[in-house]
């Protein structure tokens, strides 16, 4: 199977995913992605209220091998960890632990990490550990867009300069991209940007301007 672009760690998690299934008595359940976008992951956490340690975790996956493998390895990594430690995990760490996903699949690791972070955030809000609502700024939107991956390089669209500039005014975010509309990943990157930003209550609209459509 040398020709498959997945290494043995990934294939092992794909074939035998760990901690899989619905957890009926979970404290927190979160879902990221949707069947429509082709990848969905649901994460269940059980947290010890005395010390906020993750005492149990499970996941379910609808998606490709990378999605299944990432979900599986995350459950292994966070089991037993204090929430504060689990929070520090990011997709780079997970990707490294998996021995490196193919660039075009890195967004699957982001999805799984997003599920973990939303689960933790949800728990923190429910237990009064965190105050809600953040006002959108150019800077924190940029941070948010670091979770969108350029499938051709496997790096996020900010550090890979796929995003040239952002402009935020009157709740309208304009994203200037360095790729043309005919780029093979244009549609994918655009829908990922919308997915990460559109739901924010203080953002009214997201405009995406491709390099070849600049005035």
């Amino acid at each position, binding site marked *: 199977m040398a020709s498959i672009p997945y290494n043995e760690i990934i294939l092992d998690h794909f074939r035998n*995913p760990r901690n899989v299934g619905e957890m009926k008595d979970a404290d927190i359940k979160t879902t990221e992605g949707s*069947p429509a976008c*082709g990848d969905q992951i649901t994460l269940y956490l059980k947290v010890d209220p005395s010390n906020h340690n993750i005492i149990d975790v499970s996941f379910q996956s609808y998606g*490709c091998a990378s999605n299944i493998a990432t979900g599986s390895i995350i459950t292994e990594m966070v089991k037993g960890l204090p929430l504060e430690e689990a929070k520090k995990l990011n997709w780079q760490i997970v990707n490294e632990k998996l021995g490196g996903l193919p660039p075009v699949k890195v967004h699957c690791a982001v999805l799984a990490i997003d599920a973990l972070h939303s689960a933790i955030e949800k728990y923190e809000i429910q237990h009064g550990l965190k105050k809600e609502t953040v006002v959108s700024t150019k800077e924190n939107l940029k941070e948010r867009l670091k979770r969108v991956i350029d499938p051709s390089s496997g790096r996020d669209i900010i550090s890979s300069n796929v995003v040239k500039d952002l402009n935020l005014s009157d709740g309208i975010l304009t994203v200037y991209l360095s790729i043309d509309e005919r780029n093979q990943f244009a549609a994918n990157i655009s829908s990922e940007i919308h997915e990460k930003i559109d739901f924010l209550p203080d953002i009214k609209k997201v405009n995406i301007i491709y390099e070849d459509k600049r005035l």
Partner: protein
Amino acid sequence: MPIPEGYIYLDNASSTRTSPEVVKEMLPFFTEIYAVASSQFSHTAGIIASEALEKSRKIIANILHVEPEEVIFTSDATESNNLAIKGFAFANRHKGKHIIVSPVETHSVLQSVKTLQQEGFEVTFLKVDDEGRLDPYSLKNAIRTDTILVSIQWVNQETGTIQPITELANICRESGIVFHTDASWAVGKMEIDLSKIPVDMLTFTGSLINGPKGIAVLIRKKHVLLKKIMDGGFNEFNLRPGVENIPGAVGIAKALELWTDDRRKIIAHLDSILKESLLTIEDSLFNGSKNFRLPGILNISFDRVEGESVILHLDMKKIAVITGSACFSRSLEPSHVLMAMGYTHERAHGSIRYSLSFENTEEEMKKTAEATRDVVERLRKITPIKKE
């Protein structure tokens, strides 16, 4: 690295095995007759090479019922489609700027017309129904006074849906519009007689008819004016420059010759076995046309599972198929064919295409259906999506 023993290859709508008879026919043109095809005033080696090229052209012309000089050799169906569409548009832009295509064409057609849009041409994408079929009336309605070209495939690459080519070609002929069809998935697999259907240009390729890769044909009826899209010499009736691929031409001609009703019957038989058993899998959905499907391309979606995981598991069970899932595609977009048919993203993500060869066996069909059932059940155990 060798292909594992017992491997079941069901991706014949992507590429087929070159038949040993074809390879045998081609071999002398690598090691013995390797001169370029040249004019009759040239050296003997070149004349012999030229005769082989012209003989291949004639074989293809006879089978499809066209004139030999209407057979143009190209490198691939992609090139044939580019030459037919761009070559025609650039040669005839003074007559009009409107082109009509279907949304389920292959990328070489869709991207060619996109390029033409940037050059000032206007393109209408006709709608297909949920079986992937065009209504000939929609073509009639889309035709304008400045329409110059219609390009609609004969058989769809993902679903095997057959378009009403005779009706579409007749409509174009009556309106004086040139009609091109990408018949890459039709030629060989069905009998095609171009003396009976007014098709002006037709594409097919060696790699899909158990011939070699790197060779294809564009049939171009004599009255159709094309401008070449690549600059060079005067080869192929001054339409396609470059040293002729003589082994390829010999190979594609031989491959086409070998297609008989016997092969078609075997494929139809295997197709019915596979289709029947796959559709007994719970929540499986047939994608395509009930009455107008070419056997051999079978597309089925399995609810609540994602295709790339299915094909990876099947590959580990030594079965080769592909999926219309976004995860699988080079653009991370779901199959444009299934989307144009009005299906949901989920249905496209869960779709698997099984494409057969006359060399497959009943045993392989049974194994494939069982393996698919096993994989689908396995993936449904871990999916967060509830059955509706």
